[in-house]
């Protein structure tokens, strides 16, 4: 993007002052190179979001922002219900509550490397991944509704994982306000066989080695040590979330006119929070959040069982579980006043700082873990929420590397088999049912995750704690 489009506040903060129908400014957090390389569509979308009714303070974009659906991926926006504020299906995304969780194994990388191939194979067998894969459990109507209300808490009650995991999941594993009745039969049917599946595309389960610690005190609190192994799981609410996104996108696009909302882009489809459509979406979206939390909880159980085959004594404690496609009702300070707002984070991670009342005791001094996934060939990062993040973008940070190249272009440039061999040469084992899927997800098709994380760190959105690198990756 053209740097002249922005007023530069500091090295990492770029503002677009309100013009036309914008109600608030747009603010982007990134370094100069990331801004230059950012898609022009980000400019269009972040300013479009600023025109929506009831938006508070500013429309934000994170350092990994790229072209999304209505909202940019990496978009953050807050809405006040009492000011006609809206909720947008595109502002949450099709994969509702897609997110990342990290398990800490305490196993030295040397021990994993000694059985690296076996571990990759055991995990590949244990984790249903890719098109057409099904999970081991099938939910009847009653259990489906119980899952949609109970989230990870439901999963733990059914024997997937442990009670102490729940403390280390946003919303303590159970999103309140879920309305299973607002979830269509189609969405439920689409989920019937998909509980405990990874999905495809950019979703993964990765065995990672801690390579570097940036903040020793926080790393100790997070139980992270250089040379030890952690497991990262990236996936979301599967078919149920996709179907809810699809259905409400249409419903909101058709309803917006009735509420006098002029949409600059049909993808921005939204409805007032106080409208029947807004309330219905909120209930359905929260049910989908529970579906994602339950899904990652089941995958955690499967991962633990797989590890136990080779490492019977390993514990695999949950560090934390974050969702990066959500709309959540939160308290934030705006111009010195506490406001209750609905915060959309589309491809953005919540990053509550130290002392935040919603954090469990264990993270009160450190801030919450902010888990940033890289690509299958590159590093991922573990960050922590900062106090100043609240004054930046409602305590939000980036979520990943962000694509730099289309799947189409990636497919022309890389061959799956060749990539798998190259990565194996660098000590990273990829296991995937789809060679083409691997090519489309080539590490080179993504932005430099380190640059994105550095910008988030420097901008005060979150602070770096540790860098991890992949040893094995299960791709859908």
């Amino acid at each position, binding site marked *: 993007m053209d740097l002249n489009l922005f007023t530069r506040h500091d090295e990492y903060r770029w503002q677009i002052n309100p013009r036309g129908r914008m109600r608030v400014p747009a603010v982007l957090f990134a370094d100069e190179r990331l801004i230059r390389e950012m898609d022009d569509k980000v400019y269009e979308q972040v300013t479009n979001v600023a025109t929506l009714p009831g938006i508070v303070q500013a429309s934000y974009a994170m350092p990994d922002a790229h072209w999304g659906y209505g909202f940019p991926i990496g978009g953050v926006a807050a809405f006040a219900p009492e000011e006609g504020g809206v909720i947008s299906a595109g502002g949450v995304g099709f994969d509702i509550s897609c997110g990342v969780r990290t398990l800490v194994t305490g196993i030295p990388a040397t021990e994993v490397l000694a059985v690296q191939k076996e571990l990759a194979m055991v995990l590949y067998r244990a984790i249903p991944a890719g098109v057409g894969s099904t999970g081991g459990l099938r939910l009847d109507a009653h259990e489906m509704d119980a899952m949609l209300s109970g989230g990870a808490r439901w999963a733990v009650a059914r024997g997937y994982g442990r009670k102490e995991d729940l403390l280390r999941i946003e919303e303590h594993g159970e999103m309140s306000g879920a309305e299973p009745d607002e979830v269509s039969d189609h969405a439920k049917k689409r989920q019937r066989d998909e509980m405990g599946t990874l999905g495809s595309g950019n979703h993964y389960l990765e065995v990672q080695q801690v390579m570097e610690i940036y903040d020793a005190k926080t790393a100790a609190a997070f139980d992270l040590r250089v040379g030890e192994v952690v497991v990262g799981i990236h996936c979301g609410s599967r078919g149920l979330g996709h179907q809810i996104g*699809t259905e409400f996108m249409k419903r909101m696009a058709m309803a917006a006119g009735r509420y006098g909302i002029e949409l600059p882009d049909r993808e921005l*489809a939204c409805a007032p929070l106080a409208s029947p459509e807004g309330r219905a979406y909120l209930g359905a979206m929260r049910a989908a959040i529970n579906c994602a939390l339950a899904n990652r909880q089941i995958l955690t159980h499967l991962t633990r069982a797989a590890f136990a085959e080779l490492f019977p004594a390993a514990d695999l404690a949950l560090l934390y579980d974050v969702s990066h496609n959500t709309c959540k009702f939160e308290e934030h300070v705006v111009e010195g006043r506490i406001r209750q707002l609905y915060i959309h984070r589309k491809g953005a991670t919540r990053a509550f700082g130290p002392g935040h009342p919603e954090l469990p005791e264990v993270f009160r001094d450190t801030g919450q873990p902010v888990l940033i996934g890289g690509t299958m060939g590159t590093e991922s990062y573990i960050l922590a929420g900062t106090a100043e993040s609240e004054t930046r973008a409602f305590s939000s940070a980036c979520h990943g590397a962000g694509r730099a190249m289309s799947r189409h272009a990636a497919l022309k440039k890389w061959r799956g088999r060749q990539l798998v061999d190259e990565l194996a040469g660098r000590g990273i084992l990829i296991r995937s049912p789809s060679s083409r899927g691997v090519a489309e997800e080539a590490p080179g098709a993504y932005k430099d995750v380190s640059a994105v994380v550095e910008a988030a760190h420097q901008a005060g959105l979150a602070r770096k704690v540790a860098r991890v690198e992949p040893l094995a990756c299960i791709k*859908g």
Partner: protein
Amino acid sequence: MAGPGWEHFHHVADIGVRGHGATVEEAFVQAALALTAVIADPASVSPQSGISVECEAPDRELLLVDWLNAIVYEMAVRSMLFSRFAVTITGQRLHGQAWGERVDVSRHAPAVEVKGATYTALRVAQEGGAWVAQCVVDV
């Protein structure tokens, strides 16, 4: 323009599907083939068994998204891929049929699931005597 056909077009995170043909219906059929091709080579999918879908939307563009989303849904709940399609449009209603088979991972080598068809780059229009039907699908 030559006979009916389909292609993919660029989107940075996802992928665009475009069908063209002499009629809107033909363009919709080709767009559905482009949708299958996001996942697997349509030529590898045998049109063994058929399903039908009904859609309704206030305009042609929303109808295209509904049609593609109906196929996405059928693929998901039946674990099927489709390689032959037929479409009839009457006013705001669409009656569609799709023929295909169950996903066979070793034979179809499916690359990616489609989450849904979107309103991005959505266009149904007549261009130089032929119809074009396109949108971006989220994968």
